[in-house]
């Protein structure tokens, strides 16, 4: 099993969700996050005051998928989240040791 963690542009969320649904991935955790990488902040002046937006709004998606499906998910995810510009985000993939469904104690891939 792999855990896929993707930091994407907020406006790409619906598209990414649709793409994942299209390949049968429904379960995911989504959080509203802020951060920056190469896409540096941004400055707006309003009423004579500078508003520095150093931390840009992003959306974080987390999901655990069977290892055999990981490549397919990554492909769908990158295709849907890409605009080609700086700030599109990043994806991290981790190995997962175990998954447990709390309700009935299912283990491994059947708990996904």
């Amino acid at each position, binding site marked *: 099993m792999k855990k896929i963690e993707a930091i994407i542009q907020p*406006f790409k969320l619906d598209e990414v969700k649709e793409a994942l649904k299209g390949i049968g991935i429904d379960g995911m955790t989504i959080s509203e996050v802020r951060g920056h990488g190469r896409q540096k902040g941004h400055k*707006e002046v309003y009423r*004579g005051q500078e508003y520095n*937006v150093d931390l840009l709004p992003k959306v974080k998606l987390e999901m655990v998928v069977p290892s055999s499906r990981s490549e397919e998910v990554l492909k769908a995810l990158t295709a849907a989240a890409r605009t080609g510009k700086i700030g599109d985000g990043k994806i991290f993939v981790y190995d997962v040791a175990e998954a447990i469904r709390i309700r009935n104690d299912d283990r491994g891939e059947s708990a996904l």
Partner: protein
Amino acid sequence: MENRPSSDGLASIRRDFLASGDAATALAERNAQVDRLVLEAATTLLLPAAPTGLAVLAVGGYGRRQLFPYSDVDLLLLFESEDLAVASKDAIAVFLRYLWDSSMRVSHSVRTPAECTEVHDRNIELNISLLDQRYLTGDRALYAGLAEKLPRFIHGNRGPLVRNLAQLARARHAKYAGTFYHLEPNVKETPGGLRDHQLVCWLDQLHGAQEGPSEELEAAFRFLGRLRCYLHCQSGRDNNALSFEAQDGIAELWREGDAAQWMRQYYRHARVVYRAAIRALDASEAQFSSLFAQFRDWRSRVSNADFAVHRERVHFRAPQRLDVEPELALSLFEFVARHGFRLSLEAEQRIESRIAALRAYFAEPRPLWPALNQILSLPHAPLAVRAMHETGVLAAIFPEMERIECLVIRDFYHRYTVDEHTLVTMQNLWKLPNGYRDLLAEVKQPSVVMFALLFHDVGKGVPGEGPVDASVRLAQGAMVRVQMPWPDRETALFLIRKHLELSQVMQSRDLFDPQTIRDVAHQMETVERLKALTLVTYADISAVNPEVMTPWRAEQLWQLYLAVYNELTRELETERIEAIPAGPPERIAFLEGFPTRYLRTHTEQEIDEHMALEEKSRIKKAAVDIRKLESAWQLTLVAADRPFLFASVAGTLSSFGMNILKAEAFANRRGLVLDTFTFEDPSRTLELNPTEADRLRATTERVLAGKTDVRELLRNRPKPVLPSRKARIPATVSFDSEASRTATLVEIVAEDRPGLLYDLASAISSDGGNIEVVLIDTQAHKAIDVFYVTAEGKKLGPEKQQVLAAALRKAAGA
């Protein structure tokens, strides 16, 4: 003890209820069943350990014989002494274990009579549960002793008991956002649920009320009781959540038709209970708080000729006048909106009894907008609108609202019915966080934003038509009926039509892409509309449910607002009217070169008037018009551009003691300047002396023609009184040379004072700067001035900026 009937007995109660729907029988059977079991267990397992000095009491819901099938069974083990209780520890354990093993969820407490007659601030539930105590078995004399003391204890401690009970209830209401219009309510805990019904009964009991609850309230109790019984029987546990699935189940089982339609019955009953609970709470709290009483008496002084305030509630002074003067109802709600009092029961009933006549009266097109405008602009507007909704007056004026009354639209994120969501949007508009709150202060007519919120979702109640289109259509009819003036109508329609626009952009467009911002700016057209729509968006999103407007999302919306605001201010200079579609040549010549903002912010009639002014200006080189607006004055001038022109007019107005609120200066391609100054006349000079307006006009024209020196006029100007140093707004001056292709944008935010604009504009002009475009706004004591400045036809270089910044800071008093 062979028979352990509880689980089997429950199964039969469950089966019978689901077949018959008879909750009274189900409750009676369950109570009898539990009584039998407890008596039996107590007799054999508990009482032998303490044959005297122990009584078993049923308390809480079980005590009042309202034990729902899977509710907890509350028992009080009353021991005459703590020692006896300690000695009986083992027997108590065996007794409770037996009940638990019989699938009964027991919630017990062990107390002495003395503990039962003390106020427990930390365990309010114990005191409250004793209001419903009932003897089951054991030492009758011990119980009799307590039963004798209890009424005295309750009477003597009514104050703290009521306070504690009210505190619990208020906290519970707050948890559910103080509304019963939840899409998936909890039939016990949600406002208007069974707990509130019980609250009314307890408060009545504490006050020693003689008459029982009203028939309406009892009908609501029966309705809710039956629902709760269903939820317990259906899920086989203490489940009180009326989920969408449960709603479907009930509609099908009881052949109620459409679940959403059936839910309207629920809301009607919940409304009866909630209103009774709120009334009982208010009355009780008021009675037991002396500080509150003093405040209340002080507040009652706001009473006037039409309405009296008594115990925080508004009463009609002459209720019968409502029969002949239907608009008295509007005055009543204006009173509510102004002072923040709720209606008295009598006032509510009076209005409700006259609702048919009010409907007939308001159905005719009438000039109601001035009154509505007033109600919707006052600080307690949301309270007034809610009261209008509850009494039916809102639907009498706007029958369109009936389409969304108690309307359930199932949606994962939405928590409330459509009408409640609408009322919450309006509440949200008046409790905005910083930043957004400033926007509301800057919006010219909050009433138009409120109106747009009132109608934004009305179209959801129209099947088969796009909800937004339907809302627009229904709002149009309503606005014509109440005779709202045209510009306000246009703004309201824009807000309704676009109410989803900004949230859609936030969701699907890159907010850091300049193209996104240009597109949004293009749709907004003016800064004024952008501000209003940002407010509508904030209020709408945060009314979906209390958690939806996360700080992250609020920041996104603010970011979008900022970027579009800056884009629109930039456009002032860059977007000029170039191609005029068609029209007479003089009109084309007049408009060419003005910022596009000019067309967006002026009506055809105003453009005609400006052209007439231009005509006049040809003879005298300048023409000035002064007129009274609703709450201020406006000076418009047309003249050929020349250095110091803007500064001299600002100076002339100051020399007359006028306070400039807003100003705009635009130049067209032919070098003709059109300046508009909105100003206030603090000493009402113009109003009281009609000739003064003529003198101001003539003086301005002379100043424009160079015949009078504005410095002479200003020589005798009184020195302005500045606020204390602490209250002052520090002046900031910022330059932006990127914003426009040809000019430098200078933005000054400073403490407003008479003559400030003259000083700033003079500082720019003295420095050789030419003012191309100006947009001035004031907000309480703060002036926000944007100038587009050039020097010798070019942008300002860094050195020039430095010199000018120093001069402007000095002028602004920094």
